[in-house]
């Protein structure tokens, strides 16, 4: 099945989807050294986001999350791609700065109510189409 999304930062990626079951702020919610979710009480606490196609239906929290995104990029611990439920600048700015610094820059897509579930294998095309293998 193929779903058209809007690419904020176009690119290609393939990976396993990790859908956040509860909203999260990367700052205070993700460890930049390990990429693990650290937020107390979060249902996915302890899960590493590195290499996943991270589905973020709803964003919350701190404006320091761009810095955590950049740090994950430089450390090679970034997700393979982000699919956001709404347009937002905080995480994508971390990706743009990564690109400017010559570090890996991942695709960022937006799709309201993204249908993708944890564990699905997804392929992202440059035009924003997401294929569920």
């Amino acid at each position, binding site marked *: 099945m193929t779903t058209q999304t809007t690419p*904020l*930062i176009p690119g290609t990626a393939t990976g396993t989807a990790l859908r956040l079951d509860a*909203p999260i702020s990367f*700052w*205070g*919610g993700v460890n*930049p*050294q390990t990429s693990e979710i*650290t*937020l*107390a*009480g979060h249902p996915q606490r302890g899960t590493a986001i590195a290499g996943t196609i991270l589905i973020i239906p*709803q*964003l*919350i*929290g*701190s*404006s*320091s*999350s*761009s*810095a*955590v995104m*950049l*740090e994950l*990029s*430089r*450390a090679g611990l970034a997700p393979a791609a982000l699919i956001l439920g*709404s*347009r937002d*600048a*905080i995480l*994508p*700015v*971390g990706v*743009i*700065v*990564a690109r*400017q*610094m010559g*570090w890996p820059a991942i695709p*960022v897509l937006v799709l309201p109510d993204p249908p993708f579930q944890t564990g699905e294998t997804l392929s992202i095309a440059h035009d924003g189409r997401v294929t569920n293998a």
Partner: protein
Amino acid sequence: MTMEIVVETARMLGADALIEIHSSHIDGCLYHGDSGVLFCEKLASEGARVVVPATTNVGALNLLKPDQSRLSPDQRKMAYRLMMAHEQMGCTPSWTCAPYQAGARPALHQQVAWGESNAVAFVNTVLGARTNRYGDFLDIACAITGRAPYYGLHKPENRRAKLLIDVSALPACLLREDAFFPVLGALTGRLAGETVPLIDGLPTATEDQLKSLCAGAASTGALALIHIVGITPEARDHATALGHLPPEEAVTVTPDMIRQTRDSLSLAPDGAIDSVALGSPHFSTAECRMLLSLANGKPFRVPVYICLGRHTMRALAADGTDKGLADLGVEFVTDTCVVVTPILPAEPGVMMTNSAKFAHYANGNTGHAPVFGTLKECVTSAQSGHVVRDVEVWE
């Protein structure tokens, strides 16, 4: 580089124009790892300088007492380099998350580009300035270019409230209690998420109460603007804040909802505590004086940290409040705060606080389990070493 960041962001957000901004508050001076330091030093070395007044948020070090943070020598050096890169770019070294209480107060309807979620919520809500939530790097890019993408809360039509939160059914004495405001903030953040809410039924609020409400709401939700009928400048009345349309959703807050939210801010049962952390957002002079008055000369048995800006330290020194608090056992934390850098006791324990923001972030960032209480409860608990409750407040 900075104009590319601003223009790319505008494109991603679907903004068709940039606007001129009047000031910025820079969140990017807090060390999260070497990547941000390298980026800011690259900007500074290429000659980038801010073109609008730009205050700095907290760094990872108390520059007056750098050993206070238990960072490795290498991390301390990088944290310091990051703070200095911002000074080199011409930022005003305010090192506070409450710059609006240190003289940086945007005017009504003024377009600004601020970072730090509580400060964003405060200037939109309390001052009626216009900003989105600017993250690290975009904030400095806007300050250097003097421009921001014209979208979101910069546009008057997006500032309309759509969710009505009615607190008029709550007891009048609860509505005046300082500790009610961070709890209402946390509840508002959870109810509203990213929707602009309108709170109706609050009789009055001090600036410090609004500060704690905004900080709570911006921690539990992505809130950047809260209207409060009769109190905030864009909500003189219902109809104005709602844009003369009916609310899309309405919630009547019950005492149970307040108690449940309050309880959700504690992750440890009442018992022994290891520390008390105050000042998220940074404590004001009035809050410090209130603490001194509540303590009534009785010293603290556990470490009590007050996070605050140097502007407040100067005011406290002027009338001896600083000495009075230090004599009780208070440890002052300037330029930074205890949930962004390791200052709390090394062994994770129980940290009591009157801040919804500290309660929200403490466990993930420090490993300490928060217990939420009123300032009076924090004081009596610090004096006895275990949680002492003042139950009447919440009835």
